[in-house]
């Protein structure tokens, strides 16, 4: 048995199975639709069939009279009808009511809801609700929507929700010194999250006026606060309970209409209500990724050094803001932070259209940015005759760099990622090969710690060690599939020096588990940081008890494999359980460790875009080999090499899982995905048959995942964010590989076979 740590990790870096894998394999994990509450009713919502209309009247009489219907609500029933879904950051961005009262702004916008004894009755009741609309022409094109004479979607003078203008360095001077100037325009698509579980909520009011919800949430504490605000009750009266969640990818990061509607139905009916979207509803009524138009002008010197950049971004907001304003800010600061270039200007516009609205989606604006920046890098490389890998290495950030807008880069493995991805794909051998084969590469920067969506990046954890030496962890983080439960378990086990098998994460319940005001890929950073601090505190208490028992200075003690040992003599002294027992029963002091991770007030100014967005940054490069059949435009992805600087792989199996999963979404984003709309604003492909996400046969047979460990000083055990970066460089890498294979440059996603054929035969 080991008797000293010698700086080696016991659990961190190990491939332990997920703590929730067994219950999921058995089908025993409880998702929202698996839960039944006695007396529960079933809810359904009525959606607008028009993309742009004024609501003249809603008659719910017939619906209310249908046998089995227990509650019918419209927007007017919801308390103080002005309470918007909390957009989190800035009150003026709030523009969405749970049920609209005056206007509907996209097909799928909800206007009424019913709760009944079963779903079929609820759906029949929806058909009996008579809504009279005054229909307006829908505005579907963001560029047309920006025009002064376009129909206005909100009660504002312009359909531009927000605009930003960032200017750093000397852009004119930079272009003046450039030997080449490149101007290219790129378009990205309306990607849908396609979580396998649809949005759902169960709401139950107690006699004490408190609300309990089980919902597909990504952030329990924030939902608690946001929902309370919309309902007009104190947040301590909202209790959010644990559920397994069938994926999120950002779609469950902010409150949706589902939760307040369900809560209101339950209040009116006086019974619990379950409201679950069906798949059609999930496609159109839940949020999406923002389509982007990015015009990017880049000035380059003869040797390939990028000297200036100017970008214009139009983000298609859809009908409402949600987190759109924040996404636009991230897009803009990202455009300022790719590579060393100091002279950057970004003009960005978030524009309303009468389509499903955008929100958070894995990458939060970075996949859009990367497609533009990294596609153009290869256009540059080809023109000035520098190898694309070389060009990136020449311009790549280094540790200690500060980007144009003020991101202070600490650990940085970007160059290593680029080199490793290129080597792993066989760059030298496969580049410019004949027979319609090609390789491409793309790189990215991304926030590695918290992102401060809202007041965020604040987490509390509590670790209790009982007198059997078992640790109970109370944290507000919410597992949605990415594996955060397991990461937290590993971090606590490592810090305490005990086996992960005796570390138990307490099921989330906001009445019991403490606050966590953020979730998304930096969960490891924020929640892991808090858990590590709490475990450290608990460890100190255990060692204090042991020091007292053995009359040894606490500085001479450590814990390994569940035993307290003397560092000097390497002697095993006593098990953790004995020290804990002594503390509880003899000293009367329970072992309860407290930890807090607080990133502190933001140093980033949203107005100018200047400042440190995140305490640390992650980097990645992905290289891909494809073959293209010009005659039918079919692109086959053969192999991917993904090198990710995530600081440290706390659980390599799960890290690979994040890379492989993100890659699949990136491949879909690149080649097949995007909601399409007809002239009335109706989604034409709102089903899995027509909206094509990658299936098992569509994935490359070889995915080489390379974790580059730069061991950042700020993250727990050196870790930085990983979950989002895995789909950032994917689409441009594929676009670049297609160019290498058949010489066509596609600047619009998705890169469908039609586009490839057209480009190959008509444009080249």
């Amino acid at each position, binding site marked *: 048995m080991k008797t000293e740590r010698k700086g080696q990790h016991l659990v961190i870096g190990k*491939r332990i*199975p*997920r703590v*929730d*894998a*067994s*219950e*999921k*394999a*058995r*089908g*025993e*994990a*409880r*998702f929202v*639709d*698996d839960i039944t509450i006695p007396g529960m009713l079933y809810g359904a919502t009525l959606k607008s069939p028009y993309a742009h209309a004024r609501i003249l009247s809603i008659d719910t009489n017939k619906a209310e009279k249908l046998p089995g219907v227990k509650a019918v609500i419209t927007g007017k029933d919801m308390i103080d009808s002005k309470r918007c879904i909390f957009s989190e950051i800035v009150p003026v961005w709030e523009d969405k009511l749970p049920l609209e009262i005056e206007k509907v702004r996209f097909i799928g916008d909800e206007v009424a809801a019913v709760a009944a004894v079963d779903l079929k009755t609820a759906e029949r009741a929806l058909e009996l609700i008579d809504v009279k609309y005054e229909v307006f022409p829908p505005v579907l094109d963001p560029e047309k929507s920006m025009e002064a004479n376009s129909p206005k979607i909100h009660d504002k003078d312009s359909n531009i929700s927000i605009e930003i203008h960032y200017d750093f360095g000397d852009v004119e001077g930079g272009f003046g010194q450039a030997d080449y100037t490149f101007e290219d325009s790129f378009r990205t698509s309306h990607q849908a*999250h*396609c*979580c*396998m*579980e*649809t949005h759902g909520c169960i709401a139950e009011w107690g006699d004490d006026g408190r609300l309990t919800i089980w919902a597909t949430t990504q952030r329990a504490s924030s939902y608690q606060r946001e929902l309370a605000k919309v309902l007009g009750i104190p947040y301590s009266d909202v209790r959010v309970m644990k559920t*397994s*969640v*069938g*994926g999120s*990818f950002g779609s469950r990061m902010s409150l949706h209409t589902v939760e307040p509607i369900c809560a209101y139905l339950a209040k009116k009916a006086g019974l619990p209500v379950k409201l679950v979207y*069906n*798949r059609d509803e999930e496609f159109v009524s839940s949020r999406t990724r923002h389509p982007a138009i990015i015009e990017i002008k880049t000035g380059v010197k003869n040797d390939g050094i990028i000297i200036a950049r100017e970008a214009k971004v139009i983000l298609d907001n859809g009908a409402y803001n949600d987190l759109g304003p924040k996404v636009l800010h991230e897009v803009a600061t990202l455009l300022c932070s790719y590579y060393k270039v100091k002279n950057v200007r970004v003009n960005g516009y978030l524009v309303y259209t009468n389509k499903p609205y955008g929100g958070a989606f894995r990458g939060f604006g970075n996949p859009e940015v990367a497609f533009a920046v990294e596609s153009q890098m290869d256009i540059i490389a080809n023109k000035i005759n520098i190898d694309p890998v070389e060009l990136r290495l020449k311009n790549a950030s280094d540790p200690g760099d500060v980007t144009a807008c003020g991101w202070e880069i600490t650990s940085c493995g970007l160059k290593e990622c680029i080199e490793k991805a290129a080597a792993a794909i066989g760059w030298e051998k496969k580049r410019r090969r004949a027979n319609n084969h090609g390789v491409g590469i793309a790189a990215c920067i991304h926030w590695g710690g918290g992102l401060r969506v809202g007041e965020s990046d604040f987490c509390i954890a509590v670790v209790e060690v009982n007198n059997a030496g078992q640790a109970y962890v109370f944290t507000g983080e919410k597992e*949605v*599939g*990415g*594996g955060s439960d397991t990461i937290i378990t590993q971090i606590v086990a490592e810090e305490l020096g005990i086996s992960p098998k005796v570390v138990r994460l307490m099921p989330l319940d906001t009445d019991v588990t403490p606050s966590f005001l953020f979730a998304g890929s930096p969960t490891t950073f924020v929640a892991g940081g808090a858990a590590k601090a709490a475990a450290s505190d608990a460890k100190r208490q255990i060692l204090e008890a042991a020091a007292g028992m053995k009359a040894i200075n606490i500085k001479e003690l450590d814990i390994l494999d569940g035993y307290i040992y003397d560092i000097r003599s390497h002697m095993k002294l006593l098990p953790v359980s004995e020290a804990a027992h002594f503390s509880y029963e003899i000293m009367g002091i329970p072992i309860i460790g407290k930890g807090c991770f607080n990133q502190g007030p933001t140093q980033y100014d949203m107005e100018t875009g200047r400042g440190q967005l995140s305490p640390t940054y992650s980097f990645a490069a992905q290289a891909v080999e494809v073959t293209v059949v010009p005659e039918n435009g079919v692109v086959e992805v053969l192999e991917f090499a993904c090198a990710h600087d995530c600081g440290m792989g706390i659980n390599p*199996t*799960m890290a*690979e*899982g994040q890379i*492989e*999963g*993100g*890659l*699949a*979404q990136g491949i879909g984003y690149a080649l097949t995905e995007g909601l399409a709309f007809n002239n009335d604003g109706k989604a034409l492909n709102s*089903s*899995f*048959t027509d909206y094509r*996400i*990658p*299936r*098992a*046969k569509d*994935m490359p*047979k070889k*995915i080489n995942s390379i974790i580059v460990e730069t061991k950042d000083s700020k993250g727990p055990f050196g870790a930085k964010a990983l979950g989002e970066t895995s789909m950032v460089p994917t689409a441009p890498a594929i676009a670049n590989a297609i160019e290498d294979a058949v010489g066509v440059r596609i600047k619009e996603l998705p890169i469908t076979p039609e586009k490839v054929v057209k480009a190959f035969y008509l444009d080249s």
Partner: protein
Amino acid sequence: MHNFKSVLDINVNGTMHTIEVKNNWTLLNVIRDELGLTGTKCGCNKGECGACTVLVNGKPILSCLTLVVSAQGQEILTIEGLLKDRKLHPIQQSFIERGAIQCGFCTPGMIMSAKALLDSNPRPSEAEIRAGINGNLCRCTGYAKIVEAIMAAAK
């Protein structure tokens, strides 16, 4: 038509159930809502995602597209039926060990498809595995570790 009822005898996971059903109920409805076996999931309710996959007489079928009345006299196996005396089936064990599970929503359907595949083809190639699970959508894993897990369970 949809108010008509039938009484069915169906064998689910080795247990005979006699239940009254409406003729327009699907097998998925009955498994989840009448029998309380919520391991089988509803991802789309129109046969496009595979989350509802169960085995009927050993063959993988989409229970959301199957009328329950057609299950009369058939042997149905759901994810809950894989446990033997609380011991995991080798496929379940392999999924856990190989990191083939993330959110877990597609997992029951995926495992049932895998079982059907391995029962009929005990030594599949990678291409055969991918074809065997091509009807099961997963948005989390990229399928890589699922394929590895099925390959490992086949050995």
